């Protein structure tokens, strides 16, 4: 029965209850097009959450990735327009690389100066965003100018259906990209030594270094990887909404961190899984998007997200305390 106590199972249970609850308020929730659009909304937050998950397992935190994502996205789209390039693979590679380079900056300060990641990433995030808006520009690139390849790529669907009234809807293929990345991160965390090094670092930094982990490698890996994921997600986002807005993603870090915490990761490091994070992301996105379905005014969104963060962290704090109490008594 040990699996019953796994946090993923608990989260999945709560998620199911919430879905049933929302479905009772408005059965439209269960319609396939609603579920498909929910999944679609998971993609961007989900990909970013994978990066934040790795950082949180290592005992850090990152609030700079939205700035990295928007900078990588905007610069890449500008570059595509400027060069007239019309491929898909290279731009995504470029955006991811840019994100990784920004991530290096975080890693450098966290590793070299052993400064609290929150403060480092507050600084780098503000720098990157300030640079983008102050030097590169503030004007949006809208659908008339957006490279068609990006939009077409993001339009790809795995399932397409037609409703009775003739309108079509479908499940975006970007979900597969998200799932693919999730599996990749899961494999890294579970089956590679660098992945185990992330858990080791989050468990006990001193012991990790004594055991022979190259902490510099691990720290650079996680912050760069998280940056790359953010850059990738940023560009994907612009393709999905047909718009490259240099002021995008403001405040997104709160949603993503909330989702990761909701997914059972510990802010003190050492604990967290990909599956849990994906469930956390789904929960957050579902609640946010279902406000309309439940006929609640959308201005309440921030309040709801805040309340969810508080409740989720309260539950986690309670769980950690119980674990600690058990450890003390033995």
């Amino acid at each position: 029965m040990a699996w019953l106590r796994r946090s993923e199972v608990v989260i999945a249970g709560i998620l199911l209850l919430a879905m049933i609850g929302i479905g009772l308020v408005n059965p439209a929730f269960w319609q396939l097009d609603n579920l498909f659009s929910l999944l679609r909304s998971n993609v961007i937050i989900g990909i970013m959450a994978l990066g934040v998950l790795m950082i949180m397992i290592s005992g850090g935190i990152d609030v700079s990735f939205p700035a990295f994502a928007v900078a990588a996205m905007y610069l890449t789209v500008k570059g595509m327009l400027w060069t007239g390039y019309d491929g898909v693979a290279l731009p995504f590679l470029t955006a991811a690389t840019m994100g990784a380079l920004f991530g290096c900056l975080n890693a450098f300060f966290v590793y070299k100066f052993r400064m609290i990641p929150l403060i480092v990433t507050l600084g780098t995030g503000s720098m990157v965003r300030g640079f983008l808006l102050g030097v590169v520009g503030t004007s949006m690139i809208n659908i008339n100018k957006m490279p068609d390849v990006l939009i077409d790529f993001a339009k790809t669907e795995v399932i397409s259906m037609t409703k009775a009234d003739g309108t079509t809807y479908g499940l975006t293929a970007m979900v597969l990209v998200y799932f693919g990345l999730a599996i990749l991160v899961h494999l890294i965390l579970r089956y590679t030594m660098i992945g185990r090094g992330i858990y080791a670092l989050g468990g006990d930094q001193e012991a990790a270094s004594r055991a022979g982990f190259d902490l510099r490698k691990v720290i650079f890996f996680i912050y760069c990887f998280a940056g790359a994921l953010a850059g990738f997600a940023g560009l994907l986002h612009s393709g999905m909404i047909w718009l490259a807005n240099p002021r995008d993603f403001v405040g997104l870090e709160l949603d993503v961190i909330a989702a990761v915490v909701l997914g059972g990761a510990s802010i003190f490091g050492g604990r967290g899984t990909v599956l849990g994070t994906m469930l956390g992301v789904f929960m957050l996105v579902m609640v946010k998007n279902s406000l309309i379905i439940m006929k609640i005014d959308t201005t309440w969104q921030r309040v709801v997200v805040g309340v969810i963060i508080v409740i989720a962290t309260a539950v986690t704090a309670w769980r950690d305390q119980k674990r600690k109490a058990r450890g003390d008594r033995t």
Partner: protein
Amino acid sequence: MTDAFIELRGIRKEFAGVCALDDMSLTIRAGEIHCLAGENGSGKSTIIKVMSGVYQPDAGEIRIQGKAVHHLTPIASIDRGIQVIYQDFSLFGNLTVAENLAMNTQLRQKRRLMNWGRVRAIARDAVDRIGVDLDLDAEVGNLPTAGKQLVAIARALMSDARLIIMDEPTTALTRREVETLFRIVKDIQSRGIAVLFVSHKIREMMEISERITVMRNGSLVADGPVSDFDEASLIRHMTGLELNSKPYVWVPGDRAAEAPRLEVSGLGLSDAFEDVDLTIRAGEIVGLSGLLGSGRTELVLSLFGMIPADRGVIRVDGKEVTPRSTQQAIAAGIAYVPEDRLSEGLFLTQGIDRNILCTSYESLASGLTIDQGRADTLVDDTIKAMQIATPSGAKLVKELSGGNQQRVVLGRWLLTDARVLILNGPTVGVDVGSKAEIHHKIRDLAVEHGLAVLMISDDVLELVQNCNRIVLMHRGRLTEGLDCATTSEEAVSEKLKAFT
């Protein structure tokens, strides 16, 4: 000396002009249990780090299995079979036993991927080698200290070790766990692996080791088979001082008629202890001992209000008190000196003044503000009364020696009108030299201030020498009271053993 596994000769090591090791020599024979004795700061940990390749000596010679080694790196040291078990074990509490055991092998083989089947096989093999039962899937953070130590030992044995260095391995263990540890150490030895025990606990050294090397101020002062030493000579070598300890005798005087300082009757807490009756009079020093899990820690924490008792009565000077928080306990005249001075007792980066006054600030406040003049006077008085060596109260506590630090913690309670003083392991991690001074101070406090002292310790000798009475605890009940004048360390140890 052909059977020497490692020989260090004339080792010298300086740090920024300060000499940590000077002409230090140490020889460990293959397959022996050797003890390295010395006080804190005598250079024990520096010599360990020389052997593990962390530090390069400035001068001297290292020979391993007869061959001179010129530049010993950490990797080279491990390759030659030297393994160090640090005091904190260097384990990952968030990972399973299996992964903790296999981690080093994985890293040494420069593997990039995790094969969980292999990890389990490696771990199973390691656990079988020390012949103990460990749940491979348990999270290490949930294991008790002794369990963590077993994992650390199993890990050290995996790498074809020839010498295992244990840095203060018994610090956090109860007597019973120490015995298990010693059995395993003997077992390790029987496989031809040498063990270096680094310690300052004299009795344990005498019990386990075959040969002892004593160091002081970074130099060798004595070495030889254990039969060459006795307790007194070891202390003399370690401290350079002659110590004589007379047992504590309580003179009731005219206090016998007064109500007892502390009177506990029928105290109980579910799953921890029950029916505890205990009376301590002014000037008495009562020892409390028992195995880990006997409920002794819970009992004193209940008296101090941290985990309030469910039932029973606590009286201080005849007045009933029910401490439900540390503040209430302090207000009732109960004081507690925690076991881990550095992490639980002191504010290291603050001055002596704030460390002494910390419990008294609210009573020092007239209205909202602190009466600074009175605060300064109190600090000066306490420094004088506790004989803390410092030019002023502004000096940071982290700059004081261990003995002086403990005086600061004790001195704190002089200001709170404490009448019952509970000491948990008052000399854990304190040098032999400072130990005697702290014992002396505790006796003074009991006699001069008329305190009732309850002293908890795993060091039975410490209790026999410093208390007038000892009570033993087993399975949540006080089982026996012994008069120190008529009992001996051996007798108490025997009784404790009977509990296992």
